[in-house]
């Protein structure tokens, strides 16, 4: 869908294989296999366990549950990243969203189904508002978004933690958690699985992102800002407004993930549970891996969800520690950062070496001296 029309499937495959993403993933798998062989394990069995554990009948449920969080947060990070902005405050926005959903769920006088909707909206609003605060810090006071979003994350988590430990603490419990939500205030699940309607919400968000990215004027401005912010500003794209809007959307997605987490099992806000798995960072990795492209973000999120769930299963069945999957992730990221790719048949080089001497600046003259 992202490609030009009238490209044959073969060129599409060839192009995909030449992308740094494909190279990184493949390199990760190969090097991971070498690790396995080196430690005396059977790579085929280990990888088989990862796949069957995550995609088999028993694994697909947990994988999709994990995917809900990872994809939601990956989208939250991809949306601003598309315009070259990085929101590192996903944790805080998610936790506030979860807490807002918990409070709404506990105290809303409305009937249960409406309360669920309201709790979701409250979660999104809390995340959006908090992320917008980070954007305002950049727009008004010149605090870089990277810094403002990250630093604002900690007080948010502490505030939610305080609420869960003191005013909203479940009486008599030893855990820092709120009371359980009233019966019926929960996202409907598919059958007996832990997969809820939350997955659908996240997938709808991904589809909306794709549509906005490819087919709206706003998405166009977002992409152009990401590719060259001076170009966008020159043509009149107002950067501050764009930053604010994108951060609000980003925060609302993080808040949505928090709300989904609270409205699913165990149906309460438990301090630390939303952030324990580090999905924010997995989501960031997925968004970076995909260069924030919508379809790519979905695929990368799925890849990481499979690794996380499959890794656990591999550990159970093959005695290979699940850290292997983290090694795999790390290798993929390192390769990706180096932007390596499969070479073409003939390697192209910059054929204007004289106009752009490779070493720049006066420092380079050192190399030119006798």
């Amino acid at each position, binding site marked *: 869908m992202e490609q030009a029309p009238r490209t044959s499937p073969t060129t599409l495959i060839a192009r995909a294989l030449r992308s740094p993403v494909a190279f990184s993933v493949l390199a990760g798998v190969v090097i991971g296999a070498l690790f396995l062989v080196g430690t005396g394990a059977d790579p085929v069995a280990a990888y088989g366990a990862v796949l069957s554990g995550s995609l088999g009948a028993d694994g697909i449920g947990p994988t999709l549950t994990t995917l809900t969080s990872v994809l939601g947060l990956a989208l939250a990070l991809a949306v601003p990243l598309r315009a070259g902005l990085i929101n590192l405050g996903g944790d805080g926005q998610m936790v506030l969203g979860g807490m807002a959903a918990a409070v709404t769920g506990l105290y809303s006088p409305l009937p249960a189904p409406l309360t669920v909707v309201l709790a979701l909206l409250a979660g999104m609003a809390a995340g959006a508002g908090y992320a917008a605060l980070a954007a305002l810090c950049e727009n008004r006071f010149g605090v870089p978004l990277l810094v403002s979003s990250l630093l604002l994350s900690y007080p948010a988590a502490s505030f939610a933690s305080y609420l869960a430990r003191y005013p909203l603490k479940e009486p008599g419990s030893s855990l820092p958690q709120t009371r359980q939500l009233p019966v019926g205030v929960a996202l409907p699940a598919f059958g007996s699985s832990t997969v809820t309607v939350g997955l659908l919400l996240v997938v709808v968000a991904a589809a909306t992102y794709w549509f906005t990215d490819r087919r709206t*004027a706003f998405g166009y401005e977002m992409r*152009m800002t990401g*590719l060259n912010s001076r*170009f*966008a500003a020159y*043509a009149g794209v107002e950067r501050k407004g764009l930053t604010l809007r994108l951060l609000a959307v980003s925060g609302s997605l993080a808040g949505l993930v928090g709300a989904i987490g609270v409205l699913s099992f165990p149906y309460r806000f438990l301090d630390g549970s939303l952030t324990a798995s580090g999905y924010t960072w997995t989501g960031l990795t997925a968004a970076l891996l995909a260069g924030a492209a919508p379809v790519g973000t979905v695929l990368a999120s799925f890849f990481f969800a499979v690794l996380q769930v499959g890794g656990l299963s591999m550990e159970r069945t093959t005695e290979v520690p699940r850290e292997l999957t983290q090694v795999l992730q790390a290798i993929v990221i390192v390769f990706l950062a180096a932007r390596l790719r499969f070479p073409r048949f003939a390697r192209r080089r910059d054929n*204007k070496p004289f*106009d752009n001497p490779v070493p720049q600046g006066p420092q*380079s003259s050192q190399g*030119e001296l006798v």
Partner: protein
Amino acid sequence: MTPPPSADPETPAVELRGITKRFPGTLANDAVDLTVRRGEIHALMGENGAGKSTLMSVLYGMERPDAGSVRIDGREVVFSDPGDAMAAGLGMVHQSFKLFDSLTVAENVVYAAEPRRFGLVDRGAARRRVRELAEEHGLAVDPDARVGDLPVGLRQRVEILKLLHRGARTLILDEPTAVLTPGEADALFAVLKSLAAQGRTVILVTHKLREVLEGSDNVTVLRDGHVVARLVTAETSAAEIAAAMTGRAVELDRVHSAGTPGDVILDVTDLATDGVRDVRLTVRAGEIVGIAGVAGNGQSELVEALAGLRPVTSGRVALLGDDITHASATERRAQGLAYVPEDRHAVGTAPAASVADNLAMGHHRTSLSARGLLPPAAVRGHARRLIERFGIKAVSPEVPGSSLSGGNLQKLLIGRELAHDAPLLLVEQPTRGVDIGAVQNIHDQLIAYRDAGHAVLLVSAELSEIRGLADRVLVMYEGRVTAAYEKAEADERTLGLAMAGGAGGSAPVTQVAPVEVGD
């Protein structure tokens, strides 16, 4: 500093034989021969991509040729890096200078070849050495001045002094006049001529016909990796060189007839912004107003302020009678302004985006979009129309902007802005780094736009461009409009004097122009 080692004065200083250099997909140099006699100023000319850069990289040891030989003073040499080339007596002044701004002239000149005393740098000796060299070659410059405080013309002298200090007998200068005033350029050529008279050799890589005709002895023209002409400057003409460079007859420095001005479109009164003050100007429908000036005298700031990208500190700007002094860039565009910025890679386009996306910018909220939607088919259709209309050479609308040549990227940018059909067009350096063939096309487009009744404000450092296109010429110097001429009065000499602050020959440019990076 020493005379050439070889005794025979007929031995060429530099002799390249059959240089072939292939890059994947291109044959950058195909059996190129270049002979440069000792003591001559030899111009190497050609359009972008003709192979002159590659040839100089081979000569300077930055690239290994696939075939061919290099002889310096009659001895065959193989350079593995620029250090070898320097040891053999070559020296190059790059287009972007390689100097330490925070160090003094003397420190820069002796850097990495310092006179020593007890193992320490002998600063006194360094200063004396710079004075000696400066005096010997007429390159007056204060050895204790900080390089960062010097105007561009003097920085270039520092670069030349650096090479002379290291004993370079052959100097290679890459587009040396790109950032100089006409006065500074004249001074440079005087220096080069005196160096040549002392037996040093100068290779000048340039695309400026005028200075080649005035300042060189011989010309070698490259096209598509081949030598297409070897000319003796005294016996050739600008037209002949241009024809060799492009492979067809080119009408040079055409002066277009004046337009017929109508109503005032842009009215600027007492405008001030960073680096600009007291600017008053009007541009009428059907006229091109040219702003001449050496880069860095406030032209860019003025245009940015007019385009809404830089806040106006005082004064008033009216477009079609409405006050837009504090309007945003978007509001100005809606009011009827289009803008071709100076830096087409960093500002005017997103090279990583597709040609179609680059062409959509500014149209994406108006003609191409409905209720916030931007259908990809509309973007592609728009791109195809502009590609056709403006003769942009792109494989398809989907290829990235970075795959286009400089000239084609500029056509894309100008085409996109002309397509707005805005009453006022701001254009900065429309043909910088663009091949001669494309220059003509771009000039014709601008004239046609003017004749269709639009107002055009043109900023250019090329005098021939200003003279050819502008109906009226304003000269900016140190942030102010210091002179205004009608088309008939604006001859090269008058403008050149005004650009240098009215003082004439030597150029008292106090503002430091940004160092231009070649493309």
